[in-house]
């Protein structure tokens, strides 16, 4: 079998390498594997081919007959790894206890060499190369057009023909088509009404004032002027109200969609984006869509109609004079293009300054106690000052640009008016047009230039809108959501069996934190998880809760992959108590009942009682109706923790996860919490991550996680009996510490 992709071959070598490989003694290609690296060891770009065949390993450069690395017998290799450096990586093999670099590749080839590493490990284990696995299409690049995908396995934005920002924004108004049609009709009527006064003026001048005849027409003409003006006024009221109605509804829906999307985004997304920046988008950027509706309804469309309607009237009245009116237009277009190019980035900077200010304030106000504790008020004031300065400069540069552009455009239009005066005056003097016609012309001239001026400034508004819309759609288009199974397994109730099968996981997909973790927890068991910081304990918890998805292997709950669960079923089955419990602004009762808002008052109190929280709540003047500040301000750490336990208890989950639930409270509070937890754990599968090993003494089993692997597993006594065991060592250290404290 011989098959190949652009950078990888199985069962054959590329022609440029085959000859060199043959010279080096590679003659049998069956089961051979070749992969193309794109960097030399010193970091300069350069192609080299890693060749694995006949139990040997070598690296060749195209056209060079001798291998640049190897050949080496695979029997000398004990391990293989992909070593991630900064901006590139190495495939390394362990020889005589040392990792030796074999090839260097850019991050663009990480996926390929990740697959090659797995196949090399299979070779070392005497297994066959899985050609289809190593050659399958990339998960990170569109197979059809080659465009990098926004996320692993995400749909290609080019091939899925995602519409442009403006079209998408217009699409948001689709549910309001009837309203928009109504607005459109009113605008057409309004434009027609706008054309009437100039014609009435012409009639007044030419038929009444100049000839001093038909004086009885005067009140009728004035009545007509009042009538059109009044009608326009009424129409404007309806147009304004209707467009505001549509605008506010569109922004409300958009905010709700953003909120829903933000909640659905994976935890990983929040590791990469600041909360302040996201808040700025939901709060301020969405407002641009309200403006967008108003612009479409009253700005852009109205102005286009006015230009078309008034332009037609001008040409009907005198086409030569009308042509002169068009003289300033090319200058306006050029000016607008210049404006677009120069001012466009300034809008971004204004937004950036606002966003940074929001981030700074959010951090400053959340950490105000820390600022005071370290006496950093002055430094924070300076930082804020710098930010305020940046904001001021950004705004000033934008305003300066628009303040220059607007008067210049006004001057250009003014010149157009002067040309019409000159040419029109001559025509009137030469009796080729009437004075009334010239006056009507000037009446229309203002109506013609004003919308053109507004349209030229429309680009100004559009730039601001486009940047805001881009940021808004960036959230909506984010693929950082965990995929939901199209046919989820419905599990209204679960037993609580948990199984990890050879789980590989890393927050960066190429740097695994968990490296082939396997264990099984029977329903109702109490399992302790210990290990030093960064060993992978919390990653295990994150995977059970499905805050992230595994990169390899499976996490099973009652024998079903957590990825196949309906998210609501999965989350109903799991109760989570964290080291630093989060409480929302609201009453104590609201917080206890957060997972079950419909819970009865008695149930809330029962849960609080079981969590040893009832007594301290009852002592408060407003008891369960006590309003809590930001993140439970007003409660001690232990009290907050007990409320969070009550919250978990009320949901009655089959699986309970305690992630360092008692590590940040004092000993007395810990005892209280331990008593509460004993109540909570009864009859449930419990996984407790803990540093204080004394809390896990009675666990059915303890998993010791080290460097992303389960290093030890057993009961407290079994693990203590292990000579040089990690757990035994941890217990020894803690015992000594306790003795010191005493």
């Amino acid at each position, binding site marked *: 079998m011989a098959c190949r992709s652009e950078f990888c071959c199985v069962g054959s070598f590329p022609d440029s390498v085959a000859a060199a490989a043959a010279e080096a003694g590679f003659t049998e290609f069956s089961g051979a594997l070749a992969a193309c690296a794109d960097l030399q060891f010193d970091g300069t770009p350069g192609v080299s081919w890693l060749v694995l065949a006949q139990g040997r390993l070598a690296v060749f450069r195209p056209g060079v007959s001798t291998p640049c690395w190897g050949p080496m017998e695979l029997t000398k290799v004990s391990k293989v790894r992909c070593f991630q*450096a900064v901006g590139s990586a190495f495939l390394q093999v362990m020889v005589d206890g040392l990792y*030796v*670099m074999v090839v260097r590749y850019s991050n663009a080839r990480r996926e390929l060499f990740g697959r090659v590493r797995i196949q090399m490990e299979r070779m070392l284990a005497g297994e066959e190369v899985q050609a289809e696995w190593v050659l399958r299409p990339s998960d*990170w690049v569109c197979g059809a057009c080659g465009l990098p995908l926004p996320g692993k396995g995400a749909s290609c*934005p*080019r091939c899925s023909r995602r519409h442009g920002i403006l079209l998408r924004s217009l699409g948001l108004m689709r549910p309001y088509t009837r309203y928009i049609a109504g607005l459109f009709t009113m605008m057409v009527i309004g434009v027609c009404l706008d054309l009437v006064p100039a014609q009435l003026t012409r009639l007044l001048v030419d038929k009444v004032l100049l000839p001093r005849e038909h004086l009885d027409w005067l009140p009728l003409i004035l009545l007509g002027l009042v009538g059109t003006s009044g009608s326009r006024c009424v129409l404007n009221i309806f147009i304004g109200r209707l467009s505001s109605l549509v605008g506010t509804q569109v922004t409300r829906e958009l905010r709700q969609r953003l909120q829903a999307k933000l909640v659905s985004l994976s935890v990983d997304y929040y590791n990469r984006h600041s909360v302040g*920046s996201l808040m700025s988008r939901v709060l301020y950027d969405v407002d641009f869509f309200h403006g967008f509706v108003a612009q479409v309804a009253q700005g852009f469309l109205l102005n286009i109609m006015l230009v078309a309607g008034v332009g037609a009237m001008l040409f009907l009245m005198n086409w030569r004079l009308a042509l002169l009116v068009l003289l300033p237009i090319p200058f306006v277009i050029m000016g607008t293009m210049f404006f677009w190019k120069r001012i466009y980035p300034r809008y*971004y900077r204004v937004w950036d300054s606002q966003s940074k200010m929001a981030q700074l304030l959010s951090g400053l106000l959340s950490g105000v106690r820390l600022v005071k504790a370290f006496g950093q008020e002055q430094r924070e004031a300076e930082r804020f000052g710098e930010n305020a300065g940046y904001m001021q400069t950004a705004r000033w540069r934008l305003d300066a640009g628009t303040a220059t552009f607007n008067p210049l455009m006004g001057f250009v239009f003014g010149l157009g008016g002067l040309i019409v005066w000159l040419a029109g005056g001559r025509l009137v003097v030469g009796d080729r047009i009437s004075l009334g016609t010239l006056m009507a012309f000037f009446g229309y001239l203002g109506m013609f230039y004003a919308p053109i001026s507004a349209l030229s400034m429309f680009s100004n508004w559009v730039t601001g809108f486009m940047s805001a819309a*881009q940021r808004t759609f960036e959230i909506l288009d984010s693929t950082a959501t965990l995929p939901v199974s199209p046919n989820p397994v419905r599990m209204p109730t679960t037993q609580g069996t948990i199984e990890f099968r050879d789980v590989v996981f890393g927050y960066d997909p190429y740097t695994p934190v968990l490296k082939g973790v396997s264990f099984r927890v029977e329903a109702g068991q109490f399992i302790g998880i210990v290990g030093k910081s960064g060993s992978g304990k919390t990653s295990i918890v994150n995977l059970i809760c499905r805050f992230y998805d595994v990169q390899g292997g499976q996490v099973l709950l009652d024998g079903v992959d957590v990825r196949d669960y309906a998210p609501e079923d999965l989350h109903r089955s799991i109760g989570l108590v964290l080291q630093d419990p989060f409480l929302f602004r609201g009453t104590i009762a609201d917080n206890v009942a957060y997972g079950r808002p419909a819970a009865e008052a008695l149930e809330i109190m029962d849960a609080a009682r079981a969590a040893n929280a009832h007594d301290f709540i009852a002592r408060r003047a407003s008891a369960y109706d006590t309003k809590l500040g930001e993140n439970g301000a007003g409660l001690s750490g232990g009290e907050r923790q007990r409320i969070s336990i009550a919250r978990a208890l009320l949901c009655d989950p089959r699986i309970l996860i305690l992630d360092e639930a008692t590590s940040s409270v004092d000993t007395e509070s810990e005892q209280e919490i331990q008593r509460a937890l004993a109540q909570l754990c009864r009859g449930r599968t419990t996984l407790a991550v803990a540093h204080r090993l004394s809390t896990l003494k009675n666990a059915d089993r303890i998993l010791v996680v080290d460097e992303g692997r389960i290093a030890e597993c057993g009961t407290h006594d079994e693990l203590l009996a292990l000579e040089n065991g990690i757990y035994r060592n941890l217990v020894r250290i803690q015992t000594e510490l306790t003795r010191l404290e005493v």
Partner: protein
Amino acid sequence: MVTDTAAAPATRLAKTGVRRLTPEITTVFEGTFSLLHVGVKGDTLYRGAFAARMFPVRHPDRFISLHYTDAADKEQEIGLIEDLAAFPEEQQALVRQSLGRNYHEKVIQRVYSVRCDFGLLFFDVETQFGREDFVMPWRYDRAEEYGEKGKVLLDSFDNRFVIPNVEALPGPDQQRFTGFIYW
């Protein structure tokens, strides 16, 4: 007394802090498989070491940490070279070679064009390796600050493209760049 108090925290911390690798106690040489070996007086010989910058932007030639992989496949720090220039030249060269292997960043010298499509930025740039194209998501987290005035761009595959000082780019390039990377 005042001086003592001011100096005390640094001295106290140094006792329990990072091990300083000075030329007096440290020898860096090339060993088996051209790997970096580090010998520390009074300690052991560390084979297969590699160097990492602790302040890659502010002090690229100082505060270099030497690491090795232990028998349990864990990375361990051997110690810290505070000032590489204090070492003999051949040893400096070896550490620099190791640093060169640990860091791969393309330095952007010119920005010929930037285009935005499908939420992606398509760059056409000149780097120290010549002219090339790359694609990066148009997202805040893909263009990080690099020092006071620089930016590091992460393309769709996390390859790194550095502009040490955006203001040092030619005017039109700067305008093209800040038109999209405005933060």
